[in-house]
């Protein structure tokens, strides 16, 4: 009984926050609703017994990416000046129709393809029931079987870091006065003193 209550609570908050986040006029509200979505998704991952991924979600997604979003939203002026580019009611209807269509297609494929599975139950809180450690299981596999994926993810992060620093670096730094030591040492009496 208790897992069902938790699941319906988390998933209802997720769905309502997602719908509010895309319809919002203010970008700051959207980012804060996104943080709420991340926390509730982390709760759902805890329900499934994946506690390492749940904590990594909070640390990385909320702690780094959502904070980055908040910095950018606070620095930029996010008013859309031209109000003629608003979406008409007919376009809203078409977008909603496309969304419902794709949802129905994916759901029907899922329900039909899983129809003759023997048991569809998901084992919840697996690591607590069997006294296993989710971090240990990920660690057993990540550095041996999935070593290539791990190293290439590090390379992708490195390239992203280089890319974003190279894009936003101010190349012209003329307002910073620096010392040129060799010029200072090469001063002699002839070019520093003049008789007036």
């Amino acid at each position, binding site marked *: 009984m208790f897992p069902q209550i938790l699941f319906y609570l988390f998933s209802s908050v997720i*769905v309502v926050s997602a719908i509010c986040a895309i319809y919002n006029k203010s970008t700051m509200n959207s980012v804060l609703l996104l943080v709420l979505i991340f926390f509730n998704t982390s709760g759902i991952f805890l329900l499934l017994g994946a506690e390492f991924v749940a904590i990594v979600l909070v640390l990385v997604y909320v702690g780094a990416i959502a904070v980055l979003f908040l910095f950018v939203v606070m620095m*930029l002026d996010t008013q859309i000046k031209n109000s003629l580019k608003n979406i008409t009611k007919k376009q809203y209807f078409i977008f909603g129709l496309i969304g419902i269509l794709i*949802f129905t297609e994916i759901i029907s494929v899922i329900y039909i393809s899983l129809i003759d599975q023997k048991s*569809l*139950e998901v084992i919840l809180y697996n690591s607590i029931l069997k006294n296993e450690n989710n971090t240990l299981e*990920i660690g057993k596999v990540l550095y041996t079987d999935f070593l290539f994926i791990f190293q290439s*993810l590090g390379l992708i992060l490195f390239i992203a870091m280089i890319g974003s620093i190279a*894009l936003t670096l101010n190349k012209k730094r003329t307002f910073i006065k620096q010392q040129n030591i060799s010029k200072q040492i090469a001063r002699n009496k002839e070019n520093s003193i003049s008789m007036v």
Partner: protein
Amino acid sequence: MDSLNIYHFLTLSTLLFSIGLCGIFINRSNIIAILISLEIVLLGVNVSFISFSAFLQDISGQIFAIAILTIAGAEMAIGLAILIMHYQKNKNIDIQEISQIKG
């Protein structure tokens, strides 16, 4: 209520995916809202991977979910860096006004 089966989690995943997709269509002029909707799409896919990892008792779903997190982080960093440079030049973030990008 019967116990939770895989259909519950996959319905949640599909719902998040389609809501994020609608968000990309609706917020065409606000690029930060497009990035937020993209994050919602990736989160829906993450939920699907983790729920299958619990259903099939296979750890590789969680490894791939960590990979998706990493790629989303890298993509957001570069996308926001490009957005900041564009804002410094044009002083607004209405992407329907971009006329300098040529095909």
